[in-house]
């Protein structure tokens, strides 16, 4: 546990800092309808850092940062100038173009220094887990400053003025945004920063107005970060991706809970869910009847969760073959691991192995692997045969389950007013209810 705390407290503090500034910026971004602008600015900053790298500034030096900043500010000028450049083409198109061109240009520039490819990847992927205290000490005051500046100017930013003052405030926004995104992306990576930016802000906008949106976004963001980091540690998953998926799940839950707040929409959601489950069950029933030897996603998932399901349709003899094959497969892979370890040990301990010994070990390893694959094949084959045997029964069971779940009332046409007619479209006119 102390291991986990020692490892995760810095990333967690950084997440809080990132959620704080990005939710605030995210609300502005959503209001301006330039959702992908952070990707474009991050890529521009990466291009700047790459150019600096080519000119001889070491990675993460002040020279490299200056180039990143200069490129980002130039992009901010372009973005501010084109906000209402044309009524015909949405600005989002331009944002996308900036992203792809900057990405391609960075690869062109770096072509001359191959180790730079890794450098670009680093700039974009980041790794929140390996954040150092000095990173935190750098971004926290910077973000606080930018946040205060944007907060003070929030009234001006929201006003849709005209002419040069509007341009100036747009530029101010994009410049602040660029500075923040440039630093965040290097620490947490593009995917995670995008999640920090959009998801808490979107949930805030869904559930509240005014300044409460910000508080809801912060609470949700901190909670999702905490859950994501913990999940990543407990289940041993890559941290960045786990956090992004946790944020996505949070948005999904928020999206499902939102219609449940009113009884009419809740009923519609419930019915929709039942129809979906029933259709999935019916499709599985048909699929197992048609092609019992192919992958059966529903059945496979059920067996993964509880192996009891498998015992229900395998005969005693088949079950015996299946468990034997499983045991042998595990034994072969243990033996292979043991041999590998032994060889690795011999590299530095005891008598060195001769080339012919090493070759013999290799051929043993290959045989073990082949045998393991053979056992896996046996497992698949036994299961496929059993499924073929019971496909009609399994199909019927699934079909009955589908029928049980399906909301039949949906199909009822009201006769003589005995049943209450269903309201089919209350969502379209919520003011009616």
């Amino acid at each position: 546990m102390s291991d986990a705390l020692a490892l995760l407290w810095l990333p967690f503090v950084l997440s809080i800092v990132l959620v704080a500034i990005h939710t605030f910026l995210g609300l502005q971004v959503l209001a301006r309808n330039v959702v992908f602008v952070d990707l474009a600015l991050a890529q521009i900053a990466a291009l700047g850092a790459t150019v600096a790298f080519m000119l001889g500034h070491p990675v993460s030096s002040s020279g490299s940062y200056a180039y990143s900043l200069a490129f980002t500010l130039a992009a901010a000028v372009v973005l501010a100038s084109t906000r209402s450049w044309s009524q015909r083409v949405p600005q989002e198109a331009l944002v996308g173009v900036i992203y792809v061109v900057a990405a391609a240009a960075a690869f062109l520039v770096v072509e001359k220094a191959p180790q730079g490819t890794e450098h670009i990847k680093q700039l974009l992927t980041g790794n929140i887990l390996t954040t150092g205290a000095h990173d935190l000490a750098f971004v926290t005051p910077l973000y606080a400053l930018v946040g205060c500046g944007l907060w003070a100017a929030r009234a001006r930013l929201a006003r849709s003025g005209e002419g040069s003052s509007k341009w100036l405030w747009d530029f101010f926004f994009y410049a602040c945004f660029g500075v923040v995104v440039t630093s965040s992306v290097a620490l947490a990576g593009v995917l995670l920063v995008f999640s920090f930016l959009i998801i808490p802000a979107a949930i805030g906008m869904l559930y509240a107005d005014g300044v409460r949106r910000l508080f809801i976004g912060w609470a949700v963001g901190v909670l999702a970060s905490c859950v994501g980091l913990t999940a990543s540690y407990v289940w041993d998953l890559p941290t960045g991706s786990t956090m992004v998926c946790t944020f996505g799940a949070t948005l999904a839950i928020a999206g499902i809970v939102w219609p449940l707040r009113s009884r009419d929409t809740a009923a519609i959601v419930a019915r929709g869910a039942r129809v979906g489950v029933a259709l999935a069950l019916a499709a599985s029933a048909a699929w197992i009847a048609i092609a019992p030897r192919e992958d059966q996603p529903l059945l496979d998932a059920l067996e993964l969760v509880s192996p009891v399901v498998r015992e229900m349709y395998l005969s005693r003899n088949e079950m015996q073959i299946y468990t034997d094959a499983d045991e042998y497969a595990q034994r072969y892979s243990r033996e292979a691991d043991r041999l590998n370890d032994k060889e690795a040990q011999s590299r530095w301990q005891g008598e060195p192995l001769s080339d012919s010994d090493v070759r013999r070990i290799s051929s043993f390893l290959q045989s073990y692997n082949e045998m393991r694959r053979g056992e896996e094949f046996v497992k698949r084959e036994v299961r496929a045969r059993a499924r073929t045997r019971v496909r009609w029964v399994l199909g019927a069971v699934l079909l009955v389950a589908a029928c049980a779940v399906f909301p039949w009332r949906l199909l009822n046409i009201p006769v003589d007013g005995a049943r209450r007619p269903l309201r089919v479209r209350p969502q379209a006119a919520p003011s009616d209810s």
Partner: protein
Amino acid sequence: MAKSLNALRHLARAIIVAVLVLWSPVAALAVVSIVATTTDLKSLAEAVGGGRVSVVALVPPNTDAEEYQPRPHDLNRLKDARLVLRVGVDYDLWLDRLVQQSGNRAIARGGPGYVDCSFGIALLDVRGVQVGPAGGHAHGSGNPHYWLDPVNAEMMTAVILEALVRNDAPNAKYYETQRARFLERLAERVRQWEKTLAVVHGKPLLAYHNTWAYFARRFRLNFVGYIEPRPGLPPRPSQLAALIRVVQSQRVSVIVRQPHEPAASVDFLSAKTGARVVILASSVGAVSAASEYVGLLDYNVRTLAAAFREGL
């Protein structure tokens, strides 16, 4: 008249002789053009072929050869090549399609100009036979970094020599002497290197990627783990925690990284545990000191030994 005719005949004869004399070295200089996938194979081919071969390496140094994206010019190089040298062991899988596209049948799999340098090498870390990622390790058919064992150079140069003789029989003697001379020089250096690395013998080391299996076997080094769980993936939290424990409990004092590998997690571990980061090169040209094969190994040996001597 007759005299001038005679003079003309002499002149013609002189010209013919001159042309013949001048032509013969041109014939001898018609070099064998070779394409190697990596700079290491290029260096070994040059050691065997000397001045009678011209070798191009496709993958630039400090690039992950497993993720190399071929360029248009590579096709031209392969079209004109008489030999192609590859690392094999699933390391340069992209070569097959490239050769096929070039239309040069002589260097396609099974052709007289096709050389898989992993032939006859005793492979380590064999996990299976399938191509692609498996069991936490992309090297399904064995660890491909076999050139980092200098003794393997004997087999590799033998395979290269055989292919050169097959394609350029008149120069067979030349190639054989070149190879013998190179191996003699190498054997002498291997003895020195073994002495130099005696300081590191059995001391626990950590590496970013599983590059050093053959190097470790030759010089009796103890790599206790790798930071990268699977190629291209950063370590997960529990793995990082486990690595910190390993470094502390086994007193790992040196973490090895290559110049092109990401620094973040290596530096993080180093900062947490106080272990020193050492940059080693796995291919010729990755650092400026490693300009050819012997230089590459010499750089690695000296750098590693120096890190331990400083640490004492």
